[in-house]
């Protein structure tokens, strides 16, 4: 089932058009990766999906309702968002930060599940042992995982993640993507902005590729992440090797690496 649906959306930041005529349906039970070079509009599209940014043209619906008609609190029960910036102003404990993810459910029957949701989210992101530490004293990677735990604890049907793997080591990158996979298997709709194409190739059910504000391709990873397409969009020669039927994208290094195969 479609959760968030954008149709013919155009959006601007600071007077510059950064999205042009984008249409995309986010489906329950799948991991959708948004990929593209820097400045392609991935984070902007995520902001539109999250309801942070009002598009100038087009419509955004969540569970069939116009996103503009929803209050912040209603929206918070439908979707959760992990942003790139995850600073916390005061030295809250890790546990308190994860608890904040439960706040949309305050004074609802779901609040009975607070404890379980927090425990599960902290276990899934491997931060249970950090619970009594101060958030401000954590390393960048630990902060990213705690923030992800907060987002998971929110237990929304649609989960939007903006570069969740950016500051993580290899193992935790895989863990985060496995978390995303598990969420989708449990029925959630997961949208992930990724720079690492191999991660997208390995874990996403569907890849949407943006280029200069336009959605130029969407479909299974093997179709979207071909050597030819990727080379063209990024201006860099790449080769694709397959691992268990999943594409792994590698730059071709050495001579002629910057020459495009036309």
């Amino acid at each position, binding site marked *: 089932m479609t959760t968030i649906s954008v149709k013919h959306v155009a959006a601007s930041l600071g007077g510059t058009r950064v999205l042009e005529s984008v249409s995309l349906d986010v489906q329950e039970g799948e991991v959708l990766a948004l990929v593209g070079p820097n400045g392609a509009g991935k984070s902007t599209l995520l902001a539109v999906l999250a309801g942070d940014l009002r598009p100038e043209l087009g419509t955004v619906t969540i569970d069939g309702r116009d996103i503009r008609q929803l209050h*912040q609190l209603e929206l918070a029960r439908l979707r959760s968002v992990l*942003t790139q910036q995850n600073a916390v*102003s005061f030295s*809250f404990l890790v546990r308190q930060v994860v608890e*904040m993810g439960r*706040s949309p459910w305050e004074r609802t029957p779901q609040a009975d599940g607070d404890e379980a949701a927090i425990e599960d989210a902290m276990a899934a992101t491997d931060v249970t042992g950090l619970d009594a530490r101060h958030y401000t004293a954590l390393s960048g990677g630990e902060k990213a995982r705690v923030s992800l735990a*907060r987002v998971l604890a929110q237990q929304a049907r649609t989960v939007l993640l903006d570069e969740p793997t950016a500051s993580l080591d290899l193992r935790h990158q895989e863990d985060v993507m496995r978390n995303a996979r598990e969420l989708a298997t449990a029925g959630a709709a997961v949208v992930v902005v990724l720079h690492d194409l191999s991660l997208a190739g390995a874990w996403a059910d569907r890849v949407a590729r943006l280029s200069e504000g336009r959605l130029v391709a969407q479909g299974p990873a093997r179709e979207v992440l071909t050597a030819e397409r990727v080379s063209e969009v990024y201006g860099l020669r790449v080769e694709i090797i397959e691992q268990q039927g999943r594409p792994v994208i590698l730059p071709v290094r050495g001579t002629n690496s910057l020459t495009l195969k036309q």
Partner: protein
Amino acid sequence: MAVPGPVRGAALAIGLAVVLVAGVILSALVGQLPVTPAEVIGSILRAAGIQNSWAPHDPIIESTLWVVRFPRIVMGLAVGAALAVAGAVMQAIFGNPLAEPGVVGVSSGAALGAAIGIVLGLSFLGGWSTAVLAFAGGLLATLIVYFVSRANGRTEVVTLLLTGIAVNAFGGAGLALLLFVGNTASREQLIFWQLGSLNGSRWGEVAIVVGVAIVGTIVACLLGRRYDLLALGERSARHLGVNVEALRIGSIVLVALLTGAAVAFCGIIAFVGLVVPHIIRLAIGPSHRPLILASAFGGGALMIFADLGARTIVPGADLPIGMLTSLIGGPFFFWLLFRARRQSGGWA
């Protein structure tokens, strides 16, 4: 974190209660006219309708207590609470522990508003005129600081302080101008405003400040959970269902109201809103509901002792309390700045 949260909270509550009660009793006893503890308790019991033999027989003692000392004590509690809560709320919406009504110029804005009323003899609202003008001045200053110093939902220390310098400079210059054009009587009042004092508090004024402090503290406590979420940054708070714009505007009005009420009757008393929430945060952590509630009591306690110092450090003289709090708060602020710089590796 060897000591669990509830234990720390209880320890803080008991500590604050002891300090507060001790301060109140001491303030009632100490002064030019010596009063015994028995007379204080007796007098309060008699006022509550319980006749007793401890109550003072000397009408001078009775009137000293009820006309001079008690209103001053209650005013101190209310002003301290109002300023400390205003500080905690301000720090929450600026996402910066260095925001404080005195430092960023809200107090001087409020003082300028009050001073304009005094010098021009404005009395369009009777006894409330000064308070309303102080509120308006404080609100204007808060709005200016807020909208000038924020970028991407956060306020950098440098921007905050530079804005504070500008607003304080303007407020100070405005006060100086009024001092220049005002007559002798209003000049004396203006100097009182600049230095801050609890001297000459009257019950009518006390009631206004107490009312504002209590309502303000309750509202701030009710918003406490939302302030916690705001610590995640504006965008993330919104993602968790907080109506950030409404919270911001409401909080700015709240800060202006609390600061305005305090400044209108007691002048500029800086750094209370900085020192108190900071110490409470160190004791029980940054969670805003307990922080704001404890700050209200802590602010009251600090004020009582500061006022006690103001009345007794120099025999026979009543020092301006704002001067005292700045003497203590200034170095404290400097230390906070130094620490913030060391931790973040720069003035961010």
